[in-house]
C-alpha cells in the first residue's frame, strides 16, 4: 500500500496534479495488460486496441500516476494495486481510488479551501487557485479533472448550471 501514499515522482506533462483520462479508459488499459499476463509492451496494447501514442499516452500516464501500473522503457506492468482494482467490484473500486485521490495534494488543497470558506466555491475561484499551481493554460482542464475525480470518489458536488463546486455531505 506504500504505492498509495507515494505516487511516482516523475514529472508528467499530462496530469498536472490530477489525471485527465477517466477511470473507464484506465480500467480498459489494465484489462488489456492483464489479458497479456500482467506485463506487456505499451506498443502491443496500442496496436491491439487501435490507439496511437496521442490517445493511449495520457491513459498510460494516468494509470502510472495513480500507482496502478509501472512503466519502464515501453514495458508496462500491472502493480499489486492495479491488479486489486481490476478484480474488485464497482463499490470497492471506488474505495480504492478514493484512498488514492484523497492523498493528492492539489485535490486536498481545493477541498480544504471549500471547507474553510464554509460554502461552495465558484468555478472561477477554484480555477484561479489551480492556475497558481498548474498555470492558466492548464487550469480549466485540471478543474474538469478535479470535478470528475471528486464526483467519482463522492467527495465533491458540482452544479454545472450555477458553476459551483461544493463538498458532498453524507448521502
Amino acid at each position: 500500500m506504500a504505492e498509495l501514499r507515494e505516487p511516482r515522482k516523475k514529472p508528467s506533462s499530462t496530469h498536472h496534479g490530477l489525471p485527465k483520462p477517466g477511470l473507464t479508459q484506465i480500467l480498459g488499459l489494465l484489462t488489456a495488460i492483464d489479458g497479456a499476463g500482467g506485463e506487456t509492451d505499451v506498443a502491443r496494447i496500442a496496436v491491439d486496441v487501435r490507439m496511437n501514442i496521442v490517445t493511449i499516452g495520457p491513459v498510460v500516464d494516468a494509470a502510472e500516476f495513480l500507482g496502478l501500473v509501472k512503466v519502464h522503457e515501453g514495458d508496462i506492468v500491472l502493480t499489486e494495486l492495479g491488479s486489486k482494482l481490476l478484480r474488485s467490484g464497482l463499490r470497492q473500486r471506488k474505495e480504492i481510488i478514493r484512498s488514492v485521490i484523497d492523498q493528492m495534494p492539489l485535490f486536498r488543497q481545493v477541498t480544504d479551501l471549500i471547507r474553510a470558506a464554509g460554502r461552495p466555491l465558484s468555478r472561477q475561484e477554484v480555477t484561479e487557485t489551480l492556475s497558481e499551481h498548474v498555470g492558466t493554460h492548464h487550469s480549466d482542464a485540471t478543474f474538469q479533472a478535479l470535478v470528475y475525480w471528486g464526483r467519482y470518489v463522492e467527495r465533491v458536488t458540482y452544479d454545472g448550471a450555477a458553476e459551483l463546486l461544493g463538498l458532498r455531505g453524507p448521502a
Partner: protein
Amino acid sequence: MTAADTILEVEEVSRSYREGGKEFLALERVKFQLNKEDFVCIVGPSGCGKSTLLRILVGLDRPTSGTVRFLGEPVRTGDARLGMVFQSFALFPWLTVEQNVEIGLEARHVPAEERRAKARKHLDGVGLTGFENAYPRELSGGMKQRVGIARALSLEPVLLCMDEPFSSLDALTSQTLRDEILQIWSDREVTPNAILMVTHSIEEAVYLADRVIVMTGRPGTVKAQCEIDLPRPRNPKEPEFFGWVDEIYSLII
C-alpha cells in the same frame, strides 16, 4: 426448457421496404427463441438488417410477415418489461444524469419518491453515484452509455436489448463497459432475465454471449446459432477464444 422459460419467440419474421418503386427484402423468415438466463448476441455483415430486427423485436417497427411473441403475447411498443440501450446513448442534454434515468419511470407514472430511489439504485449499480446532477455534456462517452444502461435497468426489464451499445466508444472504454455488463449480468438482484445485443464485433459477441446468432447478408436470415461454451472470464488471447471468432468469421465471409 418449459414454456415458462421462454421470453421471446421470433417466428418467420420478414421485413421488406419499398424504395424508388421497387420492393427490397431486408429480413427473410428470421426464426429463433430466447429463454431465461440467455445472453445472446446477434452478428452479421453490414446491412444484414440486425438493427432493423432489434427494432421489430422491441416493438419499434413491425414485420411485413411473421410474429414476435414476448412472454407469450404479441410484442407491443412501450412494454416496460423490455429495456433498450441505444448506440447513440439517447440522453436529453438539458436533463441531469438522474433526471435522464427518471424520465422512463416518469412516463410509467412511477411516484416521484420511488423514481428517485430507483434512479439512484441503478446509477449506483453502474458506478455513477456522485454524478447524479451532472449534465450529459460533462460526461465521457462511456459514462453517457452507463446512464443509458441505468435508465434501461431502472425499469427492471425482463429482457434488456442493446443495439451496438459500445460501437461509438474507444476500445479501452468499450472493454471496461463489456466487463461491467457482465458484472451486472452476474448480479441476480438487478439483472434482467435475458440480454439480447446486436453488435458488429464478432470478438465482442464471443466475449459476452452464451449464444451467438449469425445472420447472412441481405436479406438477413439466421445462418447459424453458436453456443459459446467458454468459461468466464474469457480471454481474447486464448486460442479457444480465437477458435470461436474464426468459426463465426468463416460463417459470415
